[in-house]
């Protein structure tokens, strides 16, 4: 990898304003593909979910998936877009071996949804409005695996494997208008936008929008212009940036790279860039010397899509509470800060916390367990919180045991560990591991007496009125009971015994 000259972020922003355009592809969670009846299930044997239509066999024809259109309209509505009353699919003609027909059925100048916006909240609570240009329907391509090259890209590969299971899976492409005025916060806005969009898509139930699975993919277009200039600079397009963190990093990198080129009198080449997770850099991909000519024309094999206004209104009325509004509500109900809410959002914990509260836990403990012990565990294993082998009901039960004094935090952590390890429900783990707090006075009394005997000096201090010293004795009792003692009761016993 060639070393790229970068200007420091502060210097870059001192001279230039970044302008961004974000293109996000969302794979819809429909059961069947966009134009045929093949399953969309992930992880199947390569080329096992294909038919004449999605393989592009001679003579085969597409038929539109109604759920695909419904999902597109829902997304459009949630993005505050206008919904087309009549629109067509178009063929985007270009050649690639993983595209069976060598044209992609997409939409061109008649998108199903257009002219909307999405409000996104930054970490400090500031709300930034991102204008939406359009959302249109299209189909995914197949998947190429290039073998034998150093980079995993087609260049230099000895051969390529093609899997058409993905070919024809419905996609919605959501394109923003140029995002201006974010200044130094541009990378943060980009990240917050993609995060908010992901939440929105999930809330609508149209896709799981898991970026690591490629269900949501982002292209980051970025250009700089000197302060005070109206005309946009030349942009670069960083393709397939596939995590929230990468969206932010790639934007930041491109700002510094553009600034370095421009400030040294160079010009930016319009090109696609590849993002590298390892070091957060981008490298040159394909140079776009002239605009690519996709020879769009209306798809003659499909009839126009004309969503009836009454149907659109029905969908609008059925939209769920949208994520930003919901977070505002929850923030108040839970009594937390914008920052804490943002952390919960980033961790993908909001639904889990809500569900845990629904199972009877109080907000503070539900949040504490998910954002503490469980988040740490997810982080260590590289899993998403939702993938952990513990349910909100189980977390709620742990919280209930703590609240009832049957467990202390230390024991509760062990119970959670047991549940995650597949040892059963919290009560079963408590039972099997014998983790119940000991608050029985006769058992505790012996331990307290022992501790007093072992720590005569400390006991003397307490007798003398130094209550703060009780902590040391409680610690000693905990040690003797291997952490299972009810700390509150121990304290009471210690004080009873030493102060009468």
């Amino acid at each position, binding site marked *: 990898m060639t070393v790229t000259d970068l200007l420091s972020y502060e210097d870059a922003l001192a001279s230039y304003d970044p302008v961004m355009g974000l293109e996000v592809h969302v794979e819809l969670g429909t059961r069947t593909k966009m134009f045929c009846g093949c399953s969309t299930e992930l992880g199947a044997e390569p080329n096992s979910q294909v038919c004449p239509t999605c393989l592009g066999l001679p003579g*085969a024809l597409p038929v539109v998936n109604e759920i695909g259109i419904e999902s597109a309209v829902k997304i459009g509505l949630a993005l505050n877009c206008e919904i087309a009353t009549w629109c067509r699919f178009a063929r985007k003609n270009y050649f690639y071996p993983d595209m069976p027909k060598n044209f992609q059925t997409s939409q061109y100048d008649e998108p199903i949804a257009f002219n909307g916006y999405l409000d996104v909240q930054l970490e400090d609570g500031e709300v930034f409005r991102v204008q939406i240009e359009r959302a249109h329907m299209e189909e995914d391509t197949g998947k190429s695996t290039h073998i034998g090259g150093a980079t995993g890209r087609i260049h230099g590969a000895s051969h390529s494997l093609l899997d058409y299971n993905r070919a024809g899976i419905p996609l919605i492409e959501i394109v923003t208008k140029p995002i201006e005025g974010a200044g130094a916060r541009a990378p943060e806005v980009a990240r917050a936008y993609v995060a908010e969009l992901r939440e929105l898509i999930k809330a609508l139930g149209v896709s799981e929008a898991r970026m690591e699975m490629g269900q949501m993919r982002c292209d980051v277009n970025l250009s700089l212009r000197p302060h005070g200039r109206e005309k946009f600079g030349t942009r670069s397009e960083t393709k397939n940036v596939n995590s929230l963190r990468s969206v932010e990093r790639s934007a930041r990198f491109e700002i510094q790279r553009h600034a370095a080129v421009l400030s040294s009198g160079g010009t930016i080449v319009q090109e696609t860039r590849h993002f590298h997770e390892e070091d957060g850099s981008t490298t040159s991909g394909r140079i776009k010397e002239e605009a690519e000519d996709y020879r769009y024309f209306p798809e003659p094999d499909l009839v126009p899509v004309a969503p009836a206004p009454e149907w659109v209104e029905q969908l609008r009325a059925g939209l769920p509470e949208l994520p930003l509004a919901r977070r505002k509500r929850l923030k108040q109900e839970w009594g937390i800060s914008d920052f804490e809410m943002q952390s919960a959002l980033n961790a993908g914990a909001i639904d889990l916390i809500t569900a845990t509260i629904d199972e009877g836990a109080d907000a503070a403990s539900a949040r504490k367990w998910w954002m503490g012990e469980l988040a740490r565990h997810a982080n260590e294993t590289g899993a998403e919180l939702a993938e952990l082998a513990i349910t909100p009901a189980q977390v709620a039960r742990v919280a209930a045991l703590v609240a009832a004094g049957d467990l202390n935090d230390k024991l509760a952590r062990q119970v959670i560990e047991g549940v995650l390890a597949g040892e059963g429900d919290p009560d079963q783990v408590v039972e099997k591991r014998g983790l119940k707090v000991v608050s029985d006075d006769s058992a505790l009394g012996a331990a307290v007496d022992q501790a007093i005997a072992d720590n005569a000096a400390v006991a003397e201090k307490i007798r003398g009125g130094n209550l703060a010293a009780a902590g040391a004795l409680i610690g000693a009792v905990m040690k003797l009971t291997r952490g299972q003692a009810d700390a509150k009761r121990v304290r009471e016993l210690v004080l009873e015994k030493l102060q009468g």
Partner: protein
Amino acid sequence: MTDIIRLTAAETARRIASGELTAVEVTEAHLARIEAVDEKVHAYLHVDREGALAQARAVDAKRAAGQELGPLAGVPLALKDIFTTEGVPTTVGSKILDGWIPPYDATVTRKLKAADVVILGKTNMDEFAMGSSTENSAYGPTGNPWDLTRVPGGSGGGSAAALASYQAPLAIGTDTGGSIRQPAALTATVGVKPTYGGVSRYGMVAFSSSLDQGGPCARTVLDAALLHEVIAGHDPMDSTSVDVPVPPVVEAARSGDVSGLRVGVIQEFGGEGYQAGVVQRFEESVELLRGLGAEIVELSCPSFAYGLAAYYLIAPSECSSNLARFDAMRYGLRVGDDGTRSAEEVTALTREAGFGAEVKRRVILGTYALSSGYYDAYYGSAQKVRTLITRDFERAFEQVDVIVSPTTPTTAFPIGERADDPLAMYLADLCTIPVNLAGNAAMSLPCGLAPEDGLPVGLQIIAPALKDDRLYRVGAAVEAAFVSKWGHPLLEEAPQL
């Protein structure tokens, strides 16, 4: 045996149903005929002897078991090689699909099988249906049974020639700009282009999606109607298929009445470029219709003058995209894959070797016409012309029930004559193309031989969209009047092969 192959489809079906003939006998008679004459005619690209006999045996077994048979059960049919047939080669007349065995049946194929029609084989055609002579087939031309040195028309020359040489009583064609009607005219057979959307395009290899339409070919109007009924109808696999009941075509073909019908004659069809004998036979047909009680109305459709130009922008544009899939990756021909070449190089070599000159010409034309900067001037303008032509038809059909015209300006021309002159070739579809652009229904049926060359002339009948039954009502009346005038079907005047 000779008798069997000359029967109409309706009569063949009747005899099989009554037990006078078995489906196997009928199939064997046709296979023998193919064996005897197809070396000369070259109507078939592939004869599915085993498949046909198996289907025939199944029909006979059904009858023996007392099961009900459909109106065309056991009748042999020649299928244009543009429809996919599971397990049977489908080449579309192109080298690029050499060796491809489709894994699925076209809807038309499926319906034929379901109706117990016996598919004898796949017929020759201009490559990807691009042509008007069948000379563009990568597998050699088809001869016109009236004169084997002349073309049978195209692109469905194989289907028309199979009918005219008694190698099948029924055939299926496709019509993008005249590929069913012009060969019918040149061979004295009957060919129908149904309303766009009337017959499913699923499994019909696409040339120009917004114009392509499959349809029935036969030797009589009634036979065409019986076949029309079998293959037509809504298909959920084809989004452009119309979801309305199939027009009562068989009933219309049996009634055959034109009294009181208003028949339009379009001024713009005629004049320069039209052969004298064609014009003469057409005018006689108009008089015949008048004599049968039809009211003749003169009409003007000024936009038709731009039909050919619009067609040669729309069809190539769509084909440039439709044919992009032939890239040597998944099926068909693959050239130059020796392990040293890139995918792009193999695709280029395969297309170079696999596509013929006319296909390349149209792909290049269409690619250009769709290019940004040219789109509005070419594809965009052509679509506007299309709208104007549709409006011309709509206005015309406010005044008349059907329109008649010559099917094609000339009779069959010699093989090779227009092969190097694409523009002359394109003129063969002058009268048929406006129908495709508007999506209407039309039929060609024989109306006599041109005095100057003794070759068949076709009469075209055009009906509004979804009114396909009118074609059959008028066609049956015209056919009956001509047969009674001539004393026999015109085809009987064709030379013996």
